[in-house]
């Protein structure tokens, strides 16, 4: 492992995990306040900066203050709790999404170094399988607390996550088939970088990857993936795992201090990863549409940086939609959630896969064999 690898890991950890998460927290709090006619937290500023003379909005240091508060609060472990698993659970929620980030190509290349921490040929499978480990964190948290409400919350959470994993994976299969079906490619690919490169060459997967007959499937696949990702991240309208009304709090009822903060961070990192996956699979990764991508072609270092900026821009846009959805839609009941997952999303995703297969064969002579 050389210096470039370390730098890439530092960037992914520093920006996507520990940079975007606090930013996301404060943006969400301010935006939700605006949507409800409030002002939101606008008092905590970084000392000595003086808001850069009014350039920065107030309250940017709020997540930092929250983190300090979380760290110094008393860390209570219930007497009857299973201590090992109790301590393990928050880590199981935070680390898998962070691991999922390593296969995501977040830019083209700088000085010949591809901007991706690990260039796995099975990147799609890796990210999917690693992300699904997060469900253990919720189940462990619920079980180890030795509290019946936590246990119910954990069970609900794991049932929800397992159900929607299916729709998530099936909607990705459609994408893989789209990116495999180009006439000039002989093989399909599970490498996220190759998927992005094919999207640059032929067109974004959300619009059928260059084959306009598949545009409908691409859009349906994107919507399915988006809905399933919302459920995977426990975001409204699918935030059933945590619930004050009937479960006291959910799987994290007994958690306090930094352990609770880790659960929350894991949720936000999960959102970032899902947004990054959406960008990679559907929205062309670091590329620009409408032929603008010629500004990113080439090996200049600033072009590499620009491609990273484009990728981050797409991720942030998706996160923004996440926030709007959270403050728009009311949550589902649990039976509605399961109904939507098993009776709507899974059949739709399967039908979408079949549709892509049929249209792909009909419209492309030759193609992937």
């Amino acid at each position, binding site marked *: 492992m050389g210096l470039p690898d370390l730098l890439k890991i530092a960037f992914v950890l520093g920006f996507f995990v520990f940079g975007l998460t606090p930013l996301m927290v404060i943006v969400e709090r301010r*935006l939700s306040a*605006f*949507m*409800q*006619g*409030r*002002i939101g937290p*606008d008092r905590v500023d970084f000392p000595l900066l003086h808001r850069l003379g009014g350039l920065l909005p107030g309250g940017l240091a709020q997540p930092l203050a929250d983190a300090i508060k979380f760290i110094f609060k008393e860390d209570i472990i219930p007497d009857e709790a299973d201590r090992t698993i109790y301590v393990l659970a928050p880590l199981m929620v935070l680390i898998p999404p962070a691991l999922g980030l390593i296969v995501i190509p977040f830019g083209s290349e700088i000085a010949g170094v591809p901007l991706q921490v690990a260039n796995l040929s099975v990147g799609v499978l890796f990210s999917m399988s690693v992300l699904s480990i997060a469900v253990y964190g919720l189940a462990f948290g619920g079980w180890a607390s030795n509290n019946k409400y936590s246990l119910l919350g954990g069970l609900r959470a794991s049932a929800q996550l397992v159900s929607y994993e299916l729709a998530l994976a099936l909607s990705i299969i459609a994408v893989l088939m789209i990116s495999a079906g180009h006439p000039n490619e002989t093989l399909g690919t599970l490498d996220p970088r190759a998927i992005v490169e094919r999207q640059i060459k032929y067109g974004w997967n959300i619009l059928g990857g260059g084959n306009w007959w598949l545009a409908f499937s691409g859009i349906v696949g994107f*919507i399915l993936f988006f809905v399933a990702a919302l459920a995977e991240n426990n975001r409204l309208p699918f935030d059933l795992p945590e619930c004050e009304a009937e479960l006291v709090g959910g799987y994290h009822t007994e958690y306090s201090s930094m352990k609770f903060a880790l659960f929350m961070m894991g949720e936000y990192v999960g959102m970032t990863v899902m947004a990054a996956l959406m960008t990679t699979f559907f929205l062309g990764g670091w590329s620009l549409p409408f032929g603008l991508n010629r500004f990113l072609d080439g090996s200049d270092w600033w072009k590499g940086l620009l491609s990273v900026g484009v990728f981050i821009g797409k991720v942030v846009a998706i996160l923004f*939609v996440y926030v*709007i*959805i959270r*403050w*728009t*839609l009311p949550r589902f009941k649990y039976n509605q959630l399961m109904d939507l997952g098993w009776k709507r999303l899974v059949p739709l995703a399967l039908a979408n896969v079949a549709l892509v297969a049929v249209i792909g064969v009909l419209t492309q002579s030759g193609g992937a064999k």
Partner: protein
Amino acid sequence: MNFKKFLLKLAIKLYIPAALKGMRYTMARVFQKKATLSYPEEVHVPRKGYRGEHRLKKDEQGRMKCVACLMCQTACPAECIQIVGAPSPWADRDKIPVVFNIDMLKCIYCGMCEEACPCDAIELTPTFTKVATTREEKIYDINKLLSR
């Protein structure tokens, strides 16, 4: 069922058009006027006619208008006004109050005293943020009421 109705039903079934409409509405709300006041910098200004703490008025010669007629004390539903009258030093009235206490903690700020007063001597001001650390401080005596 005609085609338009069918489309409408499809849109409801799909859920997504309605969700998008809702999201647009939410985004429009971002730019609405904020209801919150940033308190220490911005202060709430009560509307005209707001009923806050009382004061006793003075006439143009600087004398108190009150003639200790006990009308406000009688009208008060909370019984928070206590008046003790004494002979007046001035020729144009018989009595003036020597004790005029209002217990601001008992007062329900209904404004009945203001309605009842025949001399227009008592008034409710828009002040509502005066703080006290003891109950005694919130019993305003005649000097305090006159000085406001």
